[in-house]
């Protein structure tokens, strides 16, 4: 990360989000029409309530002001504003810092699990990671207690991150730096060694996937991104990733440590993933946040389906890769979250 501490203003004041929230309720009806368009394929219901509805999984879809081509992505300030608004909405807090202070605890190491397989074109944006890192520091997390990680150093570098294995400031390295533990973690159909970055370094993880299509598993977002924490992801792409994606997410270090998902949907891809295919990429210009990875994946899946329909492409079911693992993750054996639209509260801001 090229930006140092202090690049962004401290976010302990209510503005501008408080002002935004004053208009939120007034704008809700208009917004809900727009979201209805996004999720017109029987997607989750919309709520305008600031407080999460009892028993429901809240998914926040934050959108930038000016969706356009991928080449004209939002500015740094626009991205920070979007992140702040989204976090406040998810946590129902008046200021961004109130929300960020709820992540981790004193002295805890916070891991930021990015997704960098596809290079700069369709990976987690370093600017987003930089903004999150900054807010975490403002919320009291030491810079050296922030660890940005993914599968390989070379993947991180190709996506625009700089490897930093020691010293001050957020660390950044791939699993090839520390390797994997020696004890198998197992659940149902999977048995894997976990990366030591997750098991030995991080106390809390913020999951930072990308909103995109996947040529085998249908879509890849919150749950699939944790394949980057195991030593044998190549074994778990059979049967459209079902039940493997859900099973991997059940492994204790993942279940215990992943606290939040911030899905990078600034640029998104509706076909040809996980590799970067510019012809199938569009500027969604947003972030998708949630605590429930199943609800988030379900919501993101509907967005991709909508885009595919808009572009005249068959549904993922017709393409033979409907992401059935999402429903598996919600079944009684897993109970990771819900994919029942009636139990998902989507908040578009």
């Amino acid at each position, binding site marked *: 990360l090229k930006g140092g501490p202090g690049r962004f203003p401290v976010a302990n004041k209510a503005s501008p989000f408080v002002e935004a929230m004053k208009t939120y309720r007034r704008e809700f009806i208009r917004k809900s029409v727009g979201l209805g368009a996004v999720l017109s394929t029987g997607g989750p219901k919309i709520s305008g309530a600031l407080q999460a509805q009892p028993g429901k999984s809240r998914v926040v879809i934050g959108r930038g002001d000016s969706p356009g081509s991928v080449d004209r992505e939002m500015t740094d300030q626009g991205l920070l504003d979007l992140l702040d608004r989204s976090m406040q909405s998810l946590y129902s807090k008046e200021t961004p810092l109130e929300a960020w202070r709820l992540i981790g605890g004193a002295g805890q190491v916070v891991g930021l699990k990015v997704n960098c397989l596809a290079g700069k074109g369709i990976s987690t944006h370093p600017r987003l990671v930089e903004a999150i890192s900054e807010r975490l520091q403002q919320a009291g997390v030491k810079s*050296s207690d922030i660890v940005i990680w993914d599968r390989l150093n070379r993947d991180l570098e190709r996506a625009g991150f700089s490897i930093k294995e020691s010293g001050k400031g957020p660390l950044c390295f791939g699993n090839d730096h520390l*390797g994997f533990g020696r004890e*198998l973690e197992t659940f149902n159909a999977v048995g894997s060694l976990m990366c030591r970055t997750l098991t030995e370094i991080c106390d809390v993880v913020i999951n930072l996937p990308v909103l995109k299509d996947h040529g085998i598993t249908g879509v890849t977002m919150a749950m699939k991104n944790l394949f980057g924490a195991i030593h*044998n992801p190549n074994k778990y*792409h059979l049967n459209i990733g079902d039940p493997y994606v859900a099973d991997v997410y059940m492994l204790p270090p993942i279940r215990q440590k992943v606290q939040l998902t911030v899905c990078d949907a600034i640029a998104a891809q509706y076909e040809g993933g996980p590799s970067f295919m510019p012809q199938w990429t569009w500027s969604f210009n947003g972030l998708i946040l949630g605590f429930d990875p199943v609800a988030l994946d379900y919501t993101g899946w509907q967005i991709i389906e909508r885009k595919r329909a808009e572009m005249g492409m068959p549904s993922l079911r017709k393409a033979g890769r409907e992401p059935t693992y999402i429903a598996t993750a919600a079944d009684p054996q897993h109970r990771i979250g819900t994919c029942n639209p009636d139990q998902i509260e989507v908040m578009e801001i």
Partner: protein
Amino acid sequence: MNRKLRGESRLRMAKGESETIDSIPKQSGSGWALSRRSFFHGSLSLGLAAYPSLSRSSALAAARPVLQEDEKLYLAEAKFYEKLPHKKIKCLLCPRECVIDDRERGYCGVRENRGGTYYTLVHSRLCTFHVDPIEKKPLFHFHPGTMAFSIATAGCNVNCRFCQNWEISQVRPEQVRSYYAPPEKVTAMAVDQRCLSIAYTYTEPVIFYEYMQDTAIEARDHGVKSVVITGGYIAKEPLVELCASVDGIKVDLKAFSEEYYKQVVNGELRPVLDALVTMLNREVWTEIVYLVVPTMNDSEEELIGLSRWVKQNLGPDVPVHFTRFYPQYLMKNLPPTPVETLERAKTIADAEGLNYVYIGNVPGHPAENTYCPGCGRVVIRRKGYTVSGIYLKQGRCVGCQTEIAGVWGT
């Protein structure tokens, strides 16, 4: 883990731990470091092989990955694949036929698509090697009493829930320690250790096909034979080509049901049966091992089906080894196979007319011996991996002159 440590401090500690775990004195002159675990594994094996100076096994290379510059040593374009639009490729080496995106790997974990070109990452990249008796493979009808220089790379194209070598078969090559050993080096080591053959074994040699084939050709030029210890999950074209370069194949036939292959092996039965027929047609000496897992693949119906299929499609002279299962990896919920179950399997296969049926992983059992199908006398006496007597003359029983199927040498 000290929870008060900061991120960077934890990182240093984690790296320090792995240095301690992996810092074992180097073998003098060899330059190969062993971990405590690998040293232990190696010692176990060598106690049987009686070549204690030769064992190397791998450990998960916690903080010692192969360096990027080293990786080039092991890179070679794959032989069997098809280029697809958008830089995708389709692997044609095994029946799985993985379709792989750019910068992704196949199911085996050792082949990678880089910009639309498919590469093996494990050519000349050993993760382990030992000198083993040929009986350990097991190959009972292939030059009994000789030694096989046994090698493996990381990776496998199935994922058996009972795998006993999962620490090297179910990992990626960069997750285990690697040793650079091109075909000429492997051949030289085999010759130096007076091994009659090189065995491609421990993991799944199909996934290091190019390396295996190049080594087999090099070895044959130096009078060293090659034997393949495989699950037989390989496409026909590469198998036919491989058969021209090797001298013996042992196939682990995991079960005789597609359901078992799907649930336990993560593979398919039909292609393995097809491969066995191809091996027979290409006249490569072939033996079958059937790991008998209690309650999973030991029904009378399945064992009868297996025996009849072997006799009808391969003939009665293909040796079948019923071996004992021990709880391993992801299948620790079952007990070791009762010896009575193995004996029942042998009785069934004998009754179906197979001539050479063995019981494995039960040292000292009389069904380790080879009996003449003509007169019933012992023609090869074994205990464990040790051969104590061979009563053959020019491949025939010394008692009744019945020809015993196999590769016996001169």
